[in-house]
């Protein structure tokens, strides 16, 4: 047993040397995920959203200058809900068509008449924003109307007769786009790292190195264990480096169970090892295996919510994504980082990712044993 472990560590150390010698692999493992995670975080990060000062950019078109229109525009400008810009109708339509703007409010010439027709122009992808704009305008208009009509009666109640307190409801702390992007990109690149390890194994088989190992006193299971060990160890290192960067530069924190986070890191590192051996077990040629793997990993990453939050996906796809380990891994990481979940709350994600990783590892090892047995019998070249 001790000898087998020593052999496995020898094989793993060799893989470590190969990893350090491969600059492209090194960059793929460490630099690229950091760059992409930072970019995704920056794109989706809205500091105003965190501070509760989310404002809707709104274009306003005054078709005929009059006191009422001007006073409404001044009220809108005073609102904390919108950021207003006055334009003519042609400009508004052009900016909406090119999606430079989302919503435009058109105040008609006959604004003072009974039931004037207010137009709200919007880009088709801004259905939510147009409702938002409608709500803000209604509030502003009603306040103005109340002041106009109630003041002569000696009534001054122009404020709404209730208070609103907003609370972000999640199972833990406040959403952090960097936590999400660093978790997602790290996970995605761990899978790519697993793929690279699998392709290396394929190359070794093609280059006769496995034949050399077969002639040495190295049982196949030990050789596979060595490969799984090295893949897992380097994946964990990748984890430490990427999250370390996120922690130092973007304040990514583990607000939940640290033990749960570490176990989750171990589970997805094992998943990378499983993916690696599986690629080597089912891949016929390196080019074919690489192309197929990239498609599968990117699909699993997208559907699993590694790029964007899963709620943006259609319902049927969200339901289907429950079958993917990436979905559960991502839920786990969100839970451990910004949602502040306990070890018990993380347990379902942990159990599912560990189970999936072990299943993939086992399937790959069985398949590789089968291939080796066939090769020894002369059935395979």
């Amino acid at each position, binding site marked *: 047993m001790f000898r087998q472990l020593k*052999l496995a560590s020898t094989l793993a150390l060799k893989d470590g040397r190969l990893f350090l010698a491969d600059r492209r692999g090194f960059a793929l493992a460490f630099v690229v995920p950091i760059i992409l995670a930072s970019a995704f975080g920056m794109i989706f990060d809205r500091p105003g959203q965190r501070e509760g000062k989310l404002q809707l950019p709104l274009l306003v078109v005054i078709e005929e200058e009059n006191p009422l229109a001007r006073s409404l525009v001044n009220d809108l400008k005073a609102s904390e809900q919108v950021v207003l810009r006055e334009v003519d109708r042609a400009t508004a339509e052009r900016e909406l068509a090119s999606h430079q703007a989302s919503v435009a409010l058109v105040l008609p010439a006959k604004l003072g008449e009974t039931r004037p027709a207010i137009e709200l122009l919007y880009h088709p992808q801004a259905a939510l924003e147009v409702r938002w704009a409608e709500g803000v305008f209604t509030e502003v208009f009603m306040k103005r109307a109340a002041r106009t009509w109630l003041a002569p009666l000696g009534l001054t109640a122009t404020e709404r007769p209730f208070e609103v307190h907003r609370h972000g409801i999640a199972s833990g702390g406040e959403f952090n786009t960097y936590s999400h992007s660093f978790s997602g990109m790290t996970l995605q690149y761990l899978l790519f790292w697993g793929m690279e390890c699998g392709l290396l194994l394929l190359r070794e088989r093609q280059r006769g190195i496995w034949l050399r190992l077969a*002639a040495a006193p190295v049982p196949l299971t030990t050789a596979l264990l060595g490969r799984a060990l090295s893949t897992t160890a380097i994946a964990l290192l990748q984890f430490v480096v990427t999250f370390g960067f996120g922690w130092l530069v973007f304040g990514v924190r583990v607000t939940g169970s640290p033990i749960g986070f570490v176990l989750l890191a171990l589970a997805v590192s094992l998943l990378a090892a499983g993916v690696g051996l599986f690629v080597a077990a089912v891949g016929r040629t390196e080019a074919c295996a690489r192309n197929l793997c990239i498609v599968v990993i990117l699909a699993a990453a997208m559907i699993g919510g590694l790029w964007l939050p899963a709620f943006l996906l259609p319902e049927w796809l969200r339901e289907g994504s429950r079958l993917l380990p990436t979905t559960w891994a991502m839920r786990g990481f969100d839970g451990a980082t910004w949602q502040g979940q306990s070890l018990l709350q993380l347990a379902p994600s942990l159990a599912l990712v560990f189970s999936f990783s072990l299943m993939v590892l086992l399937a790959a090892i069985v398949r590789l044993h089968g291939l080796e047995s066939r090769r*020894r019998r002369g059935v395979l070249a």
Partner: protein
Amino acid sequence: MPPPGVNDSLRRGAVMPETGAVVFDDVSIRLGNYPAVDGLTLRVETGEIFGLLGPNGSGKSSTLAAIAGVLETHSGSIRVGGHLQKDHPAEYARFIGYSAQQPALYDELSAHANLDFIACLYDLPRQRRRLRIAHVLDQVGLTHRARERVGTYSGGMQRRLHLAASLLHEPAVLLLDEPSVALDAESRDVLFRVVTAYRDEGRTVVFSTHLLDEAEEWCDRVAVLTRGRLTAYGSPADVLHSHTTKQVLLGILQAELTEQAEVALRRRFDHDVVFRIDARRIRLEAADLEQLGQALTLLGAEGIEVVSWHTPVARLDHVAETVFPDGVEGEACFAS
């Protein structure tokens, strides 16, 4: 646990006990449905260089792979030092140094790192590992390039390093699959030195080749395989004797023959004299020297001047057609 004596024989410098280094007993090997080796029975003795001869596809590589334990036999058994692989696979692997045809090296690592990795697989302790790596690198003449990446090596240097890797753990039996293929003269000399030195230490070397002159030069004994069957077995002289039935004359013509002259010549010679022409070189085969003399006279009468000629000492490659009835590689039949 291995039987008594197995571990003892694994000590450094150990050689095989008197059980025959490698013993084949009615071995058959299949590659899919194709019978690569069929009913092979032979014995390689301790301390000899043994050559497996045969054209491509004759079963040489399969035979070596089976000795190395990386290819299973369909039937029969192979014993190395009296032991079967299935009984003690790890100990069996230590008896053997296997250098397959394709150099199995990591291009990204240095020669030293490659050898260190292989040595670790054979459990060599750190100090011994260091000494052995230095020694084998010196043996194959790569000490000065030891710290450079293998990817920067020439093909010949990679093959030398591949050989060095199989020597690291001082195996009792060294298996080399077509070791001289694509080697330059310098690398071939290195290989020859290493192989003969290994034999001189009392160890056994089994190598495959399709080059008869190489087999004759290096081997104490040879086995000729044809379509997986043993067709000749013994010392190169024995094999030569059993296949030598004709006298050979090699000559150089003054000028290349025209096609018409060649056709005319073929008409004049009867079946007792066989001739071949390659550019200005001519090779004549006949049952005795008298017939060869008559053939030379006939050439002169046809106005074909032979500027120089000799009857070489009989060698394996001169009887290639009878040794390899399925065909020979390259121009072996014109070597002198």
